[in-house]
Every structure is written in C-alpha cells, then in structure tokens.
C-alpha cells in the first residue's frame, strides 16, 4: 500500500462528507456529545467534546486536565531522589522508562556516568517496561474495538513481566530503582533465566494477538484507512514513538541517539509502516514488542560484571547548568529539561511527555470521522492520561 498522503486523507473526509450530505438536506440538528471524563475508552479521564451530525464528527476538542497533578511544580520542592520517585508516576504503565531520562539528565549535569553493568541493567529494565506497557496496549486495543478476550491475555502476560520487574526492583509499578550514578541494587539471582522464559512467553503472546486480533478481517476493516497521519504533519505536531514510525518516519531515539545506555551493543530493527493509519500504529507497536524481546534476550547474554554504582557523594547536590535528555519511551519521546542551580533539588524541570504531543493532533485528526472511529483513533494513538496531564 502506498503512502496515504494528505490527498487521500482529504478524499476520505470528502467521501464521508458526501455520505453526510443527506443529513444536511434534511436539515438535521447537530448534537454535542461529551465523551468523558469518565468513559471506558479514555484510559483515565480525558474528555472529548464532539459536535456530531448523526454519528459523524464535525469537530472534536479534547479537554484534558482531569488528572493534572502539577509535577513540574512538585519537582521544584523535591530533591533529586524524591523526583525520581515522582516521575515514576507519569506514565504509570511503563514507569521505569520515566526514571531513566531524568536520571541521565541529572548525571549529565553532575558529569558522572553509571558503570557499564548499571547501564546494561537499565536498558534491560527499560525494555521490560516497554513490553509491560505495550502489552497492555495490545489487549486494551481489543476492548476498545469490542473484543473482550485479548485484554485478559494481555494482563496474563504482562503479569510475568511485572513479576520480573518486581523481583528486581521491589516495585511492581513504580520501581524507583535508578539512582544518580547507577542503580539501587543488583539483580537478584535467577533473574536472567527467568527473563529468558518470560521473553519466550511474550513472543507467544504476540503470535496469539496477531491471530486473534490483527489477522481478523473485522479488526482490519475497523482500523485500515482510519485516522491517517501524513509524515510532515506528524513531525510538525511533534508526534513520536510508534505513532511517528507508523507514518513512515524511520526515526528511533534508541538507535539514533548516543546515550549511556546499552542500545549500541545490540542489534535490532526499527519497525516502520508506510500507511500512517490506525492499523499501522497498532501493527508497529506489536512488532516493537517482538523486537524488544529480542533486545532483552541479547542484553541478557552480555551483562558485564562489575559494580552498579559510580562514585557519587552521599548527599547529592547537582551543579549549576541545564540539560536535556530524551529517550524513546513506550509512548514516544520522553524528555526532561532540567535546570539546576546547585541545590539539592532541581530549579525547574520541564517534562516533555510523549502523549501530550501525540494527543494534540486529535482536533485535526477527528474531523469527519464517525463516533466509533474516535475510539479507534484514540486507542491507536495510545496515550496515558498521566502522560498528558503530568
């Protein structure tokens, strides 16, 4: 299938407008539908105000803030270790991945670098949290589209990953395992073997989901050609992660950016899809779980021996400066702009979360679709409310 550009998006909208013309001739009245804040399809509390003509959306306006916790303000009264515990909660499904860019930014300001064993373990846990996060996405996708079963498979297999994370870090959802200069603790014995088993199970899960959902003709008819985002629009809106790669942009911060993580030691493919529609976004995520299991498998082979903490003072004061670090999180590019003025805590932290940018495209994207497509598009864009509102 060729790249669906702007023209096709317009044609799609035009075709739907033609369908809607009947209604215009009948002079029907529009209706404002309030989707949310409490709605099964909004992964939390996103509210979408949609003006409808029949079941067709004339315009839609997402209104967030129901889960705004003011993290940028809270960081200003907390010390660096406390902020680490805090940023866990931004994207609560892949929380370890939130710590890493913040810790890396702090390390950059301090001029320390974690020992290679710590970097390695960080990368493993980073990928595990990506798997835990996207696994749930794949199940939830089914629920959004009306299939009840995939979500239970997703919970079943995510549980194995969460057990691994809990076994290593002590926290099931909020590990708080990173420290400036390394990690809190080393891996417990047996972690490597268990992880290998779990990765095998997860590849099985991917196959299952592919058979159950992605190969399903109904699923394909629901997602193909729905919510097409062309490449340049995606870049303009600052979309990131799988949403960007599904629009055919071959850009992955894991590969393209030099960070003190172990991604340069593994061989992995960056998955892209030319279509830019909902199906492409879901498909890219599915393939990325597979790719992540491969990354973890490779990393497990090569964990170097050694310490897990660099030499850092007991009471951490970060020197003055500014640093920006972003990583390829499960939801997309997650970055922290940390401004330090030499205190125990940061002076200002700008949290650039992926979902905020990803979801800001919705007013543009939801024009002219049907009500069920709102759900498809929101599900495929994959946002987490904590990541939008922070």
């Amino acid at each position: 299938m060729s790249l669906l550009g702007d023209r096709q998006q317009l044609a799609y909208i035009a075709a739907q407008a033609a369908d809607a013309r009947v209604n215009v001739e009948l002079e029907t009245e529009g209706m404002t539908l309030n989707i949310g804040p409490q709605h099964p399809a909004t992964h939390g509390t996103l509210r979408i105000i949609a003006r409808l003509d029949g079941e067709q959306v004339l315009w839609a306006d997402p209104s967030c803030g129901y889960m705004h916790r003011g993290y940028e303000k809270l960081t200003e009264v907390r010390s660096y270790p406390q902020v680490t515990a805090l940023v866990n909660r931004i994207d609560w499904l892949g929380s370890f991945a939130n710590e890493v860019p913040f810790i890396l930014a702090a390390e950059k300001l301090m001029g320390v670098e974690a020992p290679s064993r710590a970097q390695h373990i960080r990368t493993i846990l980073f990928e595990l949290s990506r798997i835990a996060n996207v696994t749930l996405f794949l199940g939830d996708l089914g629920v959004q589209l009306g299939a009840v079963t995939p979500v239970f498979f997703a919970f079943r297999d995510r549980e194995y990953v969460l057990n691994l994370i809990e076994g290593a870090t002590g926290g099931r959802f909020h590990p708080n395992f990173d420290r400036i200069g390394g990690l809190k603790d080393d891996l417990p014995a047996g972690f490597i073997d268990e992880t290998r088993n779990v990765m095998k199970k997860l590849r099985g899960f991917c196959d299952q989901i592919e058979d159950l959902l992605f190969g399903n003709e109904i699923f394909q008819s629901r997602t193909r050609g729905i919510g097409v985002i062309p490449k340049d629009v995606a870049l303009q809106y600052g979309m990131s992660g799988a949403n960007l790669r599904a629009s055919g942009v071959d850009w992955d911060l894991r590969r393209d950016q030099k960070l003190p993580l172990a991604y340069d030691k593994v061989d992995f493919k960056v998955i892209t899809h030319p279509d830019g529609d909902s199906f492409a976004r879901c498909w890219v995520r599915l393939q990325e779980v597979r790719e992540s299991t491969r990354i973890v498998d490779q990393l497990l082979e090569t964990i170097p021996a050694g310490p897990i903490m660099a030499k850092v003072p007991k009471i951490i004061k970060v020197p003055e400066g500014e640093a920006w670090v972003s990583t390829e999180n499960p939801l997309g590019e997650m970055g922290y702009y940390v401004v330090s003025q030499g205190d125990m805590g940061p002076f200002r932290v700008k949290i650039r979360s992926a979902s905020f940018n990803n979801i800001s495209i919705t007013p543009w994207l939801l024009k002219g679709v049907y009500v069920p497509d709102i759900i498809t598009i929101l599900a495929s864009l994959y946002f987490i409310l904590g990541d939008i509102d922070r």
Partner: protein
Amino acid sequence: MAKVPGLVKGLGVTFGTMMKTFKEGSNTVQYPHVKETPPLRARGVIALHEGNCTSCMLCVRSCPDWCIYIEGHKEMAPPRRAGGAARKVNKLDRFDIDYALCMYCGICVDVCPFDALFWSPEYEYSEPRIADLLHDKTKLGEWMETVPEAPELEVGADKKGKK
C-alpha cells in the same frame, strides 16, 4: 495455498485457550484461598527495628510525602563500659508511618543510616477506615517478623556492596 481467514484463526485461539484452561488450569489463582508469594524484594510494608532507631530524623526529612512522624527525647543511659561516663541517648517516643500517604518509594529505607527500617513483602493490611492506616511503632515493629533475608545476587554482581 489458501490462507486461513483471520476470523477462523481468532476462533481457534479462543478455543485453544479454553481447552488449555480445561486441561492445565487457569493462570489466575483464587486469592483468599491461594496466595501468590511476592518476591523477596517486594515493597509491601515498612518494618521498624526500634532498637536501631536513633530518631535522627533523616527518614522524616527525606520523605517526599511527609508521611513519617517521629518524636523523641534525650535521656541518660547507663555507660557502655563499666566506669565510663553516662551517655545521652535519643529515646524514641513516636514513630508513625501514614500508609494512606506513603507512596512506597523506599527512600526512607535507603537513607536510614542505622538499619532501622526494612521492607517486608507483606501486603495484607488494608483497613476499612483510612485513619487505621497510620501504623505506630508497635505495629511497625510487628512487621519485623516478616522481613526476609535479602536475595542472592545475579552472577557478575559486585558482592561487597550493601546489606
């Protein structure tokens, strides 16, 4: 070769899972009857070894949620060696952790310089009343029984490290 339609494959997956559940049992456990053991490192509840606490206030001051409350007073203790001078020690009057506020970050356990706080994987302490989630020092002390040994470390770990 004709491809199996996705609809049929999907039916196959659910049917296969049903058969598997029949034969091998489910992936869930029946919670109150069967309990899964959490990993040794699991952060379930914080236990207090009262004898080690010197009420140095470090945990209180590093708690991001302000959920630990300590009160103490100084008193004279008998000398450690015979003939030595009497010592001034901090005596702990109150050590409360409000689990309704705690966010289980583990910073207090990390900063404790005298090994008075430990994580226990115990998790069954929900309460009908939110005020009952404030655990005082006797209750925190009771959790000490459930604190496990730290797990062995994976190969390649730097063993000399921590407790």
